[in-house]
C-alpha cells in the first residue's frame, strides 16, 4: 500500500508528472517541520501577524437560551483574513519559500482560502494565481476583488460545474504544466499525500489551543467538539488534538443543501460512496458509473463532492460522526447567532451552529461543547439577504 493512508483511504492518485514533486514536497515538509528556524518563523507569523491564539469564547446567552451544555466558540473568525484558512496558508507558503519556489497557485470556493493565500503570498513576496469557479466568482465577487487588491491573479474556471471541484481540477492541470518554480497550496485536508497530512498539521493549532483553553476555563475536557465539513480542514484542525480523548465526541456537520433526499446536496458521508478522485481514495458524491456528481450548498466553501481521507477513516472507525445540515437550518443559525451573540459568522460555520442548536439540550450544564467558528460572515451577508428575498447586491 502506498503512503499517506488513513485506513483504506488516502494515497497518491495523480499523474506521473506530479509524483516526483509530491515526493519532494513530503521530504521538504518532514525536514522543515522539525527545523527550529522554520517553526519559530511560522509561530511568529501566526502570533504576530495572524493574531493567534484565537479566543475561546463562552457564549453565555446561547447557553442560556439552548438550555443544556455550556457553549464555547473557538473564534477562528477573528484571525487575520477572517477564517481558519490563514493557519494552513502561512505554513504552506513559508514552506514553499524555503523550498525555493517563487510562485503559488491555489483553488478557492468561497474565496476564503484564495484571500488567505493571496495575503500570505503578498507578505512573503511570492507570485500568486488563484483558480475559482466562475459561478463562485459571481457569488463572491467582493472576494475576487480582494484577491486582486492583494496582488493575485484570479482565473475564473469555466469548465464543468464552475465551482470548487473544477477549480481544483484546473489547479492540478496548471501544476502539471509548471512544477519547478510553483507550489500548489491546497486549501483543505484533501488531495494526494502529503497534502492531507500537511494541512491537518498546520490546522491542528486550533485544537491545540482549544484543548488547553477549555481545561483552563472548565478544568475538564468538553463533551463534544463540533465543526462544519466540506473538504474538512477546520474540522480536522478542531478534532486532531481530541482524537485520543475518547470521551470527547467529534461531530462534523456536512452541507445537506436542500436535503439529503434531494439531488441538491453536498453531504458526502450521507449520500456518497467510496471512490478515487482528486488524488485520493475517499467518499465522493457520484453516480452509478463513478461520474462525480454536481453538488449544491448555499455555502460555496462546503460545495465540494468529496471529503478528506482522514475524515473518511474517522467515519469508518466510528471515532467521529458526520451529520447533514440543510441550507434552511444553516441560514436560521446564521441569523440566530447574530442576534443572540452579536457575531456574524460564515455560513459554513453556521452549519455547525445549527447542529449545536439541536443537541445542546441533550447535555447537562456541567458539560461543554466547543463549536469551531471557522470564519466570519461578512462575505455572506448579501447571499443571506437574497435567500430571505431581499434584493441586495454587493
Amino acid at each position, binding site marked *: 500500500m*502506498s*503512503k499517506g493512508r488513513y485506513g483504506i483511504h488516502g*494515497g*497518491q*492518485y*495523480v*499523474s*506521473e*508528472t*506530479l*509524483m*516526483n*514533486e509530491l515526493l519532494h514536497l513530503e521530504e521538504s515538509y518532514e525536514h522543515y517541520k522539525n527545523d527550529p528556524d522554520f517553526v519559530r518563523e511560522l509561530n511568529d507569523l501566526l502570533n504576530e501577524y495572524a493574531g493567534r491564539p484565537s479566543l475561546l469564547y463562552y457564549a453565555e446567552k446561547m447557553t442560556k437560551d439552548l438550555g443544556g451544555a455550556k457553549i464555547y466558540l473557538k473564534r477562528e473568525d477573528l484571525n487575520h483574513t477572517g477564517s481558519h484558512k490563514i493557519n494552513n496558508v502561512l505554513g504552506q507558503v513559508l514552506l514553499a519559500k524555503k523550498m525555493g519556489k517563487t510562485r503559488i497557485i491555489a483553488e478557492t470556493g468561497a474565496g476564503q482560502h484564495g484571500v488567505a493565500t493571496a495575503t500570505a503570498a503578498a507578505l512573503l513576496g511570492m507570485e500568486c494565481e488563484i483558480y475559482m469557479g466562475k459561478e463562485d466568482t459571481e457569488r463572491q465577487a467582493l472576494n475576487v476583488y480582494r484577491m486582486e487588491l492583494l496582488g493575485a491573479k484570479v482565473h475564473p474556471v469555466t*469548465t*464543468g460545474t464552475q465551482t470548487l*471541484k*473544477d477549480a481544483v*481540477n484546473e489547479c*492540478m*492541470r496548471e501544476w*502539471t*504544466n*509548471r*512544477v519547478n518554480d510553483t507550489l500548489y497550496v491546497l486549501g483543505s485536508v484533501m488531495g494526494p499525500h502529503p497534502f492531507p497530512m500537511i494541512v491537518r498539521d498546520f490546522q491542528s493549532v486550533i485544537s491545540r489551543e482549544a484543548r488547553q483553553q477549555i481545561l483552563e476555563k472548565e478544568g475538564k475536557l468538553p463533551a463534544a467538539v463540533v465543526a462544519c465539513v466540506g473538504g474538512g480542514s477546520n474540522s480536522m484542525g478542531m478534532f486532531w488534538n481530541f482524537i485520543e480523548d475518547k470521551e470527547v465526541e467529534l461531530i462534523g456537520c456536512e452541507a445537506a443543501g436542500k436535503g439529503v433526499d434531494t439531488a441538491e446536496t453536498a453531504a458526502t458521508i450521507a449520500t456518497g*460512496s*467510496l*471512490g*478515487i*478522485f*482528486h*488524488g485520493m481514495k475517499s467518499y*465522493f458524491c*457520484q453516480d*452509478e*458509473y*463513478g*461520474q*462525480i456528481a454536481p453538488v449544491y450548498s448555499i455555502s460555496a466553501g462546503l460545495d465540494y463532492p468529496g471529503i478528506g481521507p482522514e475524515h473518511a477513516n474517522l467515519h469508518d472507525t466510528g471515532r467521529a460522526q458526520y451529520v447533514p445540515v440543510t441550507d434552511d437550518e444553516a441560514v436560521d443559525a446564521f441569523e440566530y447567532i447574530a442576534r443572540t451573540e452579536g457575531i456574524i459568522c460564515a455560513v459554513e460555520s453556521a452549519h455547525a451552529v445549527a447542529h449545536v442548536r439541536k443537541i445542546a439540550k441533550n447535555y447537562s450544564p456541567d458539560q461543554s461543547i466547543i463549536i469551531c467558528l471557522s470564519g466570519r460572515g461578512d462575505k455572506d451577508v448579501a447571499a443571506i439577504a437574497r435567500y430571505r428575498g431581499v434584493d441586495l447586491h454587493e
Partner: protein
Amino acid sequence: MKTLNNKLDKVFSTPNGKAFICFLTAGDPAADCTVEYILEMERAGADLVEIGIPFSDPTAEGVVIQDANIRALKNGMTTDGAFEIVRRVREKSQIPLAFMTYANPVFHYGYDRFFTRCEELGIDAIIIPDMPYEEKREMEEPANAHNVALVSMIAPTSEDRIQTIASEAKGFIYVVSSMGVTGVRSEIKTDLGAIVESIRKVTDVPCAIGFGISTPEQAKKMAAVSDGAIVGSAIVKLIAKYGEQAGPEIYKYVKSMKDAVGECGR
C-alpha cells in the same frame, strides 16, 4: 513475470517496428460514430486505437479532450455504452484496442467485473493517468488476471523513477512528451531520446510517445526516437469540427500520420 495473452505484440510488429496509435472519446458525438471512426482508423493503418471512456473531471486533459468528454457524457455515454461500442467493433475487426479513462469509473464499476468484460471483448490494455506506480497494484493485479496490460506512464519529470517504472512495465510504455495536459503543441522540447535510452537499459517493452503530437513531421520525429507515436487531441479536434461527417477526414489524417511513422528507419 507472467506474459499476458493479448494482441499488444502485434501493435509493434510493423515493417519498421514502429506503431501509430490513435485516440478518440467513446460517444463523441455518438456511439455509432465511434464504431465507424475506429474502423476508419484501422482502414487507414492505425496499429492500436485507444478508446476514452468519458469522465466528468478529466484532470490530465487539455480543453479539446475535456470538451469531448462533456459532449459524450451529455449524449448519455457510459462505461457500459463504451463496452457496447467495443462489442460492435469486434463484429468486424480484431484491431488491438485499449481503454483510456480515469481511476474512478473503473474502480466504481468493480475491477474484476470491468476487466472480465474487457477480456471477453478483447481489450488489450488500459491507460489510467491518475494511477501512478505507487498505486497501480490494486488495478494491475485484476487487469493482468484478465490479460489486460495496465500501461505505465513515464513523464519528463520522472528522472530517477524511470527505471523503477520501466522495469515492471507490461504491454507498452506511454512516454509523456511534455509537461502539462493533453493537447496540440507547436514544439516538443523534452529530451525524449534520453528518456527512451534510460528505459532501454532495463526493459525491451516498446515505448510510444504521446501528448502534443499533431503533424506528420512530429510523428515521424517521435517515432524515430521511440517505437511509436500516440495522437489524441488532433483527432478529437477533427471530430469536434466535422461531427458525424468526420469519417473521411479521420481516414485522411490517420493515413498521413501512419505513412510518416512508416517512413522511419528501424
